[in-house]
């Protein structure tokens, strides 16, 4: 292939995607950036107003708290599932994968309303508990931290399972055989082989989970309590309730900054591990 024809081919292959990148992906982000500093004539006044308000500070600390907790929970549960899947024969694994992927592709709206029914004061969980203990149990399980964590974890676990499973399946069985011939116990094999070898998948999963939970919008709105406003809900509030675009944009920029602060080290580690 000579270089001119290859250039022409490249133009044909790449131009639709490049046009979309230039005309659709980049401008919105630039608009957010410009509106946040143009809101009051090229200054950082909007940021000043946002960063000093206690509403914003509360929201930010909540966002970090929810992100940390839901990432840890989903990592733990996702790891257990991935480990179980990695030890199944291929055919059974295929079937069990449906149990992981189906929730993954289910609309988040559907999940939230189902959890309202499951976790309500007279919901399924409390009904079962009441029957089990023969007294009326009415635990508050929804519109609070519990409900929010249940919803977030349910949403994030499948996202952890997939990359971790890929890492676990990549471990050569010979490594385990060699270790057990050398007399290593199961527990020791787990901590010296399984966990270190799964780290690339863990970091990849953690990266997605952190990005998704920092930006979570629907789950906190539907399952969390009033003290669980996240940065996304605040962006929605400033757009919808107050029609204040500059402030909504300033918060968006802060949100992106937070994502970068968390995602950069993870992406860096991942790059080193893989």
């Amino acid at each position, binding site marked *: 292939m000579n270089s001119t024809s290859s250039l022409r081919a490249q133009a044909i292959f790449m131009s639709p995607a490049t*046009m979309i990148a230039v*005309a659709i992906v980049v401008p919105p982000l630039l608009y957010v950036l410009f509106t946040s500093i143009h809101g009051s004539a090229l200054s950082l006044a909007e940021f000043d107003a946002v960063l000093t*308000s*206690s*509403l914003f500070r*509360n*929201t930010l600390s*909540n966002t970090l708290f929810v992100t940390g907790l839901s990432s840890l929970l989903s990592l733990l549960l996702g790891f257990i599932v991935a480990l179980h899947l990695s030890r199944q024969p291929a055919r059974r694994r295929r079937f069990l994968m449906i149990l992981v992927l189906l929730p993954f592709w289910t609309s988040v709206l559907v999940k939230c309303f189902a959890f309202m029914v499951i976790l*309500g*004061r*007279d*919901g399924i969980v409390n009904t079962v508990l009441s029957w089990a203990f023969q007294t009326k149990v*009415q635990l*508050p399980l929804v*519109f609070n931290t519990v409900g929010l964590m249940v919803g977030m974890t349910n949403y994030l676990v499948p996202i952890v399972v997939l990359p971790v499973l890929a890492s676990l399946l990549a471990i050569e069985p010979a490594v385990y055989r060699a270790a057990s011939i050398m007399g290593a116990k199961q527990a020791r094999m787990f901590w010296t082989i399984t966990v270190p070898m799964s780290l690339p998948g863990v970091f990849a999963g953690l990266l997605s989970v952190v990005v998704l939970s920092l930006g979570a919008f629907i789950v906190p*709105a*539907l399952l969390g*309590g*009033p*003290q669980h*406003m996240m940065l996304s809900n605040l962006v929605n*509030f400033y*757009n*919808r*309730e*107050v*029609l*204040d675009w500059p402030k909504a944009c300033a918060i968006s920029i802060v949100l992106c900054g937070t994502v970068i602060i968390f995602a950069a080290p993870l992406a860096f580690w991942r790059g080193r591990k893989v």
Partner: protein
Amino acid sequence: MNKRFTKLSRRTFLAGATLLAAPTVLGARRAAAKSDSVTISNFGGSYQDASIKAVYDPFTQETGIKVNITPWPGLDKVKAMQLTGNIQMDVFIGSSNDSASGSKKGFWESLDPSLFDAPDMVIKPDSDYVTFETYAQGVAWDPAKYSQGKHPATFVEFFDMQRFPGRRSCPKKPGMLELALLADGVAAQDIYPLDLNRAFRKLDSIKSNIVWADNTPQTISLLQTGEVDFGISFNNRVKPTTEPGGGVPLAFSFEQCVIASDCLSILKGAPNKENAIKLISYYLRPEVQARFFNMVPLAPVSKMAATMLSPETRKWQPDSSKPNNLVVDAVYWVDKYDAVMRRFLEWTMT
């Protein structure tokens, strides 16, 4: 805009944005040249069904103008439409807060006062929006669980944790501040401007027992599922629970209410302005109001229409002349909403 700028923007437009420009023409819906229709937003559900039966269909029969319904857009969508210049609807139905706020931002066409019979109206029309229905916010409970005397009936009682222990649901809206002041003994005529510190102090006293309802249906579902014992809800939401298929029947106290209202307005640059004016004045005719409000549990703004309602309907109507009832002052909220809402949200989060 000066000439050079238009030339420049046209060139850039042609060069760079062809990708976007070509389909735009296909994507945007153009208003029909000969206007024989009008587009109005609606809240959906049973309210929308009643609107069609009582208002839109008869209106079409009388005038030949077809009524298209769009799902309710927030004010943010109205703002986007105004910026875009692509106005896709004519008449906006919204709460008095939204209507007053849109009025301040210049979203609406001004309305000719001669369209309305002001003396007949409980709430007078504004220069660019007009109130057409009112509804009441008050105490609701499950009568199967709490008989007469076992439940709060006024806001003072609702805030009394000693006499009526239990969990309470409240809408997550700053409208709770008016309620708190009424509960603290402020007379209805002295509520505005709000004494915010006093209102928050009063709310603090029951804060640990509050479950916040994020949206209107939750004010009902929290009570029906037993999530809470008492709640602040709306008469038009409680009444359907007492009808067949309404789930657990609830009760609503008319002893003390905060009366809020919904308004009609015409979007600036509406494609069918003439028809929109016809529809709005049709909406406010007493006989149309009577027909509509016999179907939905809200109250008409027309005093004459109120006298035409069936006795069964009247049982579910707030009495706006009652001295301890409060009519919300939308104009107060226009300037204060942002700051008060922010403080209110901060307070709920701590």
